[in-house]
């Protein structure tokens, strides 16, 4: 499964060499710099997996304590981390179990159904319930006996190396516990910080696709006229520009809110970040359809960047929390604030 010939691995190592895997360490102060890097990655690389996985490595590094981080290899790009939370159930229930043996060691058993970069990862943040129903977080290495990784193919995000990861009585030393008492809050903190970052690459990709559509319209002739001369094509390009500007502005505002309000924002539910994720992902899908209208049959070919973008951005509908659930919570929070006469 893990081979150093995977292009995304060498790319991650090169990014790590420039410090791009450690922007978020110590409270997220590097969010703006990381977001700029991710937008730029999205603009220059046709596969959205690359900025997605880079952002994930920052989040993993940010969640590790100093000693764990120095041993993890995340910062120098020699190792990859993954977030193993989701099971085939809701976000509050877990079948993955962690029990403590008489010698103090832990035994982990269960399965995580969908782990981003799970097929390439060297270590996993695994959320599991104890016999007393505590949700704990443990660091599991791929090399630990009893870890089984099965690659899963996604509809898009080809290099994101999705996997189902199973744990068959994996014995772990007690120092592998990352969070002992409140794994639920730990997961929400982790995901809260990820929402904004996972859609940065999307905005960069939108810029690249708009340029691509513009070039295509300028050189392609239909009925003895260039596509760029047709008012309907100009309207579509104009609409794409509106969507790109709106997505970029939403991202910029959410990043500014994140950096300016770092000390007193809710670390577990930041509505700016959640709203930005929902908006950018929805906008990207509308944008992809418009690109296909400009590009016609050439845009529909599997190797087309626009078609790939359309497939990739649908993967973000569920990433960092499904769109519908985020909208539900945003609405409920807003209504509660209105009811109480407080502006969120």
């Amino acid at each position: 499964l893990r081979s150093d010939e995977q292009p995304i691995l060498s790319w991650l190592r090169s990014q790590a060499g420039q410090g791009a895997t450690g922007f978020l360490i110590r409270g997220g102060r590097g969010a703006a710099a990381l977001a700029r890097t991710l937008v730029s990655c999205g603009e220059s690389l046709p596969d959205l997996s690359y900025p997605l996985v880079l952002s994930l490595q920052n989040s993993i590094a940010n969640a590790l304590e100093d000693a764990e981080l120095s041993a993890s290899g995340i910062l120098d790009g020699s190792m990859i981390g993954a977030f193993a939370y989701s099971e085939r159930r809701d976000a509050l229930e877990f079948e993955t179990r962690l029990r403590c043996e008489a010698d103090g060691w832990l035994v982990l058993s269960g399965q995580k159904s969908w782990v981003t970069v799970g097929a390439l990862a060297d270590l996993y943040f695994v959320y599991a319930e104890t016999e007393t129903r505590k949700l704990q977080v443990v660091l599991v290495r791929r090399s630990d006996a009893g870890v089984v990784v099965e690659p899963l193919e996604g509809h898009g995000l080809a290099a994101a190396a999705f996997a189902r990861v199973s744990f068959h009585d994996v014995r772990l030393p007690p120092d592998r516990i990352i969070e002992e008492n409140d794994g639920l809050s730990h997961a929400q903190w982790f995901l809260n910080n990820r929402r904004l970052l996972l859609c940065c690459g999307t905005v960069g990709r939108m810029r690249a696709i708009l340029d691509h559509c513009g070039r295509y319209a300028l050189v392609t002739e239909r009925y003895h006229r260039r596509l760029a001369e047709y008012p309907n094509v100009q309207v579509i390009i104009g609409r794409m520009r509106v969507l790109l500007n709106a997505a970029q502005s939403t991202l910029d505002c959410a990043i500014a809110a994140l950096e300016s309000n770092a000390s007193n924002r809710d670390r577990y539910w930041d509505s700016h970040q959640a709203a930005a994720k929902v908006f950018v992902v929805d906008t990207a899908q509308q944008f992809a359809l418009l690109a296909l209208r400009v590009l016609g049959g050439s845009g529909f070919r599997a190797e087309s960047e626009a078609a790939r973008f359309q497939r990739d951005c649908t993967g973000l509908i569920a990433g960092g929390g499904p769109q519908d659930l985020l909208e539900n919570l945003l609405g409920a929070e807003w209504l509660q604030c209105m009811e109480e006469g407080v502006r969120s």
Partner: protein
Amino acid sequence: MKFKFSGTLLRFVDYQKELELTNVQTLHTAINQLLELHPDLRNIMIDGEGRVRKVIRVSVNRTVVDASSEGALKTALTSSDEVSLFTAIVGG
């Protein structure tokens, strides 16, 4: 005093938006009474050390308090006070 619920917690209180409690002196006793009435709430509201989870946003009369701290739990409540609980639990 009155509890008001919003977000993920609603499911654990049979989708009641509000719950009125009597004979409550502090935030601590209010939460204990709430957990007695709705035991399924305990696992989502309370962490492994018996504290209110940080992911639960607790507001007393519209002011957010850190209910995981002992100081906040000593907050005195009267019959006219409102405690709002908002929780956003999402997978990913």
